[in-house]
Structures are given as structure tokens and as C-alpha cells.
């Protein structure tokens, strides 16, 4: 459907600058060729500079999702895996299938706090801790540097922090990778950079992870590679888009609260909303608006809504209002 409003995948609603799109087009004109390894090295260098780490720690991938899967496949054989619930769904699914022992820590509303003591007591045997920070779908920062350090002090523990939304939250542990060999940070250009269609992810890998990734070499599609190079070379455009998104986040959040809905503080480009209308996601879909219904994976009555453009958000708000009006009339 052409007119669908997509607020279900936490994408950036704005196109990247013209130069980035033109770079992708340039890639398409060489469609018969693999990417040039030199260009891949260039991108690694650009990402290293952008992240403030050394190039040797950067691993490229087609999206960050394959990196998380690879980590689970390689490191869960002799380790138990600890995650929070809810968490980025595909990663959880992968863990469910492959790991020998999975511990999930249930986050409890309304605070969704992660108790450091649980992780400490669970990591008494070799463990792989995977945490999305900020967490998807609560939008909350779950661990701070102190907590990360405590986890990392245990050398039997590997910590993987998924920082898909760090540009929105401003919180990163990338600079700790140098000092802590048992830390890796997973990142993506799909979100803040607005390059979801290019699918570029990267790992900032601590020493303990590097060996396992020595043969993991992603030949990125040319158009993705060139657009990413162009984007990371001058990432100033993302600042404006992030600012717009945050402004919309606060505005939409406020309006939803005025409608009597429960909205949780977010450090990302999406909002977690509790509605008391079990069918709300479906009713929004009927109105052409896609959101993520969390009742299938977690607690009932919760939906996750990405921030779109001002216009899209307004359509979402008025649709919500309409749904609430009809529901309240019936009760």
C-alpha cells in the first residue's frame, strides 16, 4: 500500500542528503562488480573516526542484526546468554533457537529498571550478556558506565551493548572497548543516518571478540557502501534530523498524555504507549497507520510507535483520538 504511514520499524522519516543518494546511484552503475576492498577499508576508517576508536576494532556488516546473530552463534556454546525482556525481537528469537541456556530478565513497568544485582548473581558462570541500550521497545537507558564496568570486571563475562539508537540518547560505551577486551558495541547506520534501505551495521569489537570475526568479511553491496561512505564522511546532517525527531517525540508524547494515555520517557526515536485498548494496533492499521503491537511478545496493551514527520505524527494523533472517542463511548 502506497499511502501507509510506517511508524512500526523505527526508521528515520527523512531522506538523507542528495549527495548520499547520488552516491548510492553511482554504486548502481557498477552493478556487475563486487565492491572494491579498498573502499571497504575506507568505510572502516571513516566509522572508526566517527566512533573515536581504532580501525582494527571495526567490523562491517549488512545491518547490525547479522552481527548480533553471529555473536550468539559463536559465543553461546559454552556460555549462558543473559538478555532482558523485552528486547530487540530478532535477537531474542535467534537466542531462543540456538543457545544452550537463556536467562531473560523481565523489565517491570512503570520504571523498567534493570537491577544490576541480578546480572552480577547470574554471571557466576561463563556468560554472554546482550543488552540493547537504549532498550527497544521501552526507549530507556538500561545500563550506565558504572554498571557496565561492574559487569566487565568479571572476565568470564562477555558484554555486548546494542547501540542502535545511541545517536538519539547520547550515551555510548564505544570508548570503553579499548580498555575492556570483553566488551563489544553493535551499531547501525539504519536509524539516525536514515539509511535503513542500505543496511549497514558495524561492530566495535573488543579484543576477545576479534579472533572470532577474523573470517567474517562482509562484501557490502556497492550502492550501500558508497552511500554509507558519503554519509559518514560528513555526518552533520543527522544532527538536524535527530533534533527534529526529539522535538516531535516530546510534542507527540505530550499530546498522547493529554488524551489520557500512558506514555513512557524515551531516549530514542520511538515511544512506548500503554492504551488499555487491546485492538488499538489493529484499529490503527485499518486507518493506514502501522505501529508495533507488543502484546504478542510482552505485556498486553502496549504499543511502540516510531516518530514520523510532523504530518504523519498529526495523522497518527488524530487517529488515536478518534479510536479513543469511539471506545470510550462504548464503555
Amino acid at each position, binding site marked *: 500500500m502506497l499511502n501507509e504511514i510506517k511508524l512500526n520499524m523505527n526508521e528515520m522519516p527523512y531522506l538523507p542528503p542528495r549527495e548520499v543518494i547520488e552516491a548510492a546511484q553511482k554504486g548502481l552503475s557498477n552493478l556487475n562488480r563486487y565492491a572494491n576492498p579498498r573502499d571497504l577499508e575506507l568505510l572502516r576508517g571513516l566509522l572508526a573516526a566517527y566512533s573515536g576508536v581504532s580501525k582494527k576494532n571495526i567490523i562491517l556488516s549488512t545491518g547490525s542484526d547479522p552481527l548480533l546473530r553471529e555473536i550468539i552463534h559463536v559465543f553461546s556454546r559454552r556460555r549462558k546468554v543473559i538478555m532482558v525482556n523485552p528486547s530487540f525481537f530478532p535477537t531474542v528469537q535467534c537466542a531462543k533457537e540456538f543457545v544452550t541456556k*537463556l536467562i531473560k530478565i*523481565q523489565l517491570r513497568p512503570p520504571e523498567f529498571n534493570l537491577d544490576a544485582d541480578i546480572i552480577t548473581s547470574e554471571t557466576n558462570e561463563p556468560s554472554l550478556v546482550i543488552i540493547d541500550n537504549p532498550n527497544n521497545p521501552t526507549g530507556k537507558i538500561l545500563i550506565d558506565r558504572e554498571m557496565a564496568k561492574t559487569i566487565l570486571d568479571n572476565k568470564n563475562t562477555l558484554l555486548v551493548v546494542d547501540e542502535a539508537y545511541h545517536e538519539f540518547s547520547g550515551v555510548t560505551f564505544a570508548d570503553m572497548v579499548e580498555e575492556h577486551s570483553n566488551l563489544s558495541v553493535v551499531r547501525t547506520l539504519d536509524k539516525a543516518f536514515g539509511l535503513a534501505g542500505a543496511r549497514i551495521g558495524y561492530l566495535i569489537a573488543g579484543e576477545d571478540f576479534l579472533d572470532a570475526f577474523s573470517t567474517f568479511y562482509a562484501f557490502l553491496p556497492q550502492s550501500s557502501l558508497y552511500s554509507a561512505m558519503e554519509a559518514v564522511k560528513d555526518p552533520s546532517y543527522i544532527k538536524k534530523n535527530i533534533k527534529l525527531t526529539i522535538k516531535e517525540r516530546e510534542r507527540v508524547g505530550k499530546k498522547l498524555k493529554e488524551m489520557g494515555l500512558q506514555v513512557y520517557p524515551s531516549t530514542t526515536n520511538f515511544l512506548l504507549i500503554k492504551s488499555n485498548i487491546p485492538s488499538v494496533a489493529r484499529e490503527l492499521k485499518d486507518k493506514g497507520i502501522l505501529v508495533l503491537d507488543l502484546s504478542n511478545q*510482552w*505485556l498486553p496493551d502496549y504499543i511502540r510507535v516510531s516518530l514520523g514527520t510532523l504530518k504523519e505524527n498529526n495523522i497518527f494523533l488524530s487517529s488515536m483520538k478518534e479510536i479513543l472517542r469511539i471506545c470510550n463511548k462504548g464503555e
Partner: protein
Amino acid sequence: MKKIGLIVNPIAGMGGSVGLKGTDGGIYKKALKLGAKTVTPKRTKELLSYIKNRNEINLVVAPGKMGEAYVREFNIAFKLIGQVPEETSAEDTRRIIGEMLNGGIELLVFVGGDGTARDVYDAVGSKIPVVAVPSGVKVFSSVFAVSARAAAEIVDAFIEGTNLTEEEVLDIDENAFRDNRLASKLYGYLMVPNVKKLLQAGKEASSMGKSSVDSKGEIARYIVENMDKETLCLLGPGTTLKAITDDMGLPKTLLGVDAVYNNRLVGKDLNEKGILRLLKKYKSKKIIVTPIGGNGFIFGRGSKQFTPEVIRLVGRGNIIIVGAYGKVSKLDCLRVDTGDFEIDKLLSGHIKVIVGKKEEMVMEVRC
């Protein structure tokens, strides 16, 4: 053609708009005085308007506002059964369902809340499957569909052919609920068409692969494989625990506490006394329980036999909690209310729940 019964509790859900919680007993008169409107007509009409396979249905309906009144405007073949007075009651619901069953219905669709579900359970038991359309103030039992529209889809699925699953009927104490206390216990199980994503608490993403029946079986296998023969196992109520005894080829009291030792049943539908006697006899002991869907109670509701004294003697470390992932992940926490503050405190804090053979959830226990 399928013969399907439809029964509506016309007063369910009326308290909501006027701030009352539930309409059990005489409360609904108070609701009327406060200007409450009935919501069941809207829900019932929604249900009927969304059913696709209307030509495949022979409806059997109760007269007047218990059914007939809403059916007429739809193009569905129907037959009337029974008689109802002006002011309807639970007794009417049970009686008319009885007549419908005698008339050979294959599925019962009912519109109401937790109270209605209890009346339906009394009349239907496990004779035929039901589809529960939520129309209460707050509907907790997992038998319910998520909405009237979802219920219509479940009816369609039934007509097109689907397997069945058991879902909980909860006994909500409305007086307690009015005081903002959540007090409920397990009342029984009804059979429902197994369309997980459309059911309230059984909702489990189809991409998760397993139905709740499968995962109960997997948990049971895991528990039995790791069961120490020399340990007395006290099994609480519920289908999750029944899956364990099923796996061992033993019977289970669905709503009671049974005990197994060395692959044998050594206690059936035990009360506190019976449990205490067994605890004296056996050195190593464990309690295995599952949380109630929706509210997460592990002790204090539905298994009063596990008294503070019993829990003290067994010890927190010997309590095993099991539950299908689809049920457990939908709980914000586990709850206890044993009536003994010290025991409640002892049980509080984080505890692990076995949700699969290689998967555990860390949950907070609150009192």
C-alpha cells in the same frame, strides 16, 4: 452447517462508565441509577457483523436481550430457545445453556465478563468449546478473545476447522477489585478454538513457533527428566502442572494439590493437613507451581493449601516455578498473598521461572 449457541449477559460491563467495577450481585441496580448504559449490544453487534462464514451457521439464541434482540438485523439463520424474565440472572444463563446443549450446539459464543465466564463454566465444563467475547468492566480470564472482532475471527476459524486449547476462567472477587485489590483464583478451564494471537492471555506470537500446549509439554518433559526420585514433589493446580503428571502417566487434580514421589502418586487433592503429614515423612521436598495468568499469583490465590506453614517448611529455595513463555512474559511481576507477612517478605524479590527446557525468566515477586 454448524450449530452455534449465542448467549449475552445484558448487564455485563455496565459499571465501567459510572466508575463501578463489575456488576455481580446487586451492584448493577446501582449502576442503572447512576445512568449506566449497556455495552453488550454494541459488542454483540460488532461480533455478528464481523463473522464471515455467516451462511455456514445455524444460530441458537436466547430470547430478548440475552441474544435475539441483536441477531434480527443480521442475515443469519437462527432459532430461539428457552424463556427469560425481564430481569435476568446467572441462573437464566446456566439454564438456557443447558437447553442449548440438549439441542446439540457444537460451539457456544457468549458475551460478558469474568462472572459470565464462571456461569458458562458451570454449565458447559469441557463438553463443547466456547468463544468468549469480552464485555466486562475488566476482563481477566484468558478464555476471552482480545476484542469482539477477534472473537468473530475465532468463530470463523472454528467453522473452517481448528484444534482446541484450554484457557483459564478466573474467579475475581469483585468486592476486592472495587477496593483496588486484585483478588482472584482459578475457577476452571474452558475449551476454546486455538487461535492464540486472538486470545487474551494465551496470545503468543505465531513466530515464536510453539503453541502454549507444546511449551507446557516441553516444560513438563524437562521437569520430569530432572526430577529427583528421592524428592517429594508437591504439584499445585493448573494445566501446566497437569502436563507434568501427564508426562509421568499419572492423574492430576486440576484445581488441587497432588504429591508425587519416586514416579508414584502419594497424595491426591491434598489439604494443608495432608501436605504437612507428607512433609514430615519425606526429607527432600519441592513445591512446583505456576502463576495464574493475568495477575501472576503463585501463592495465596487458587492454592490456599500451600499455607504459610507449608511454605516455611519447604523453603524458598525448594520452590520451582514453571509456566509457558506466552503466559509468563505477559506478567509484569509475580504476586504472593499468603496471609503471613513474614512469608510474603521471604518470597519477595527476584526469582526464576522455567519457561522452556533451556529458558528461564527472572521475575520480581511482589507482595
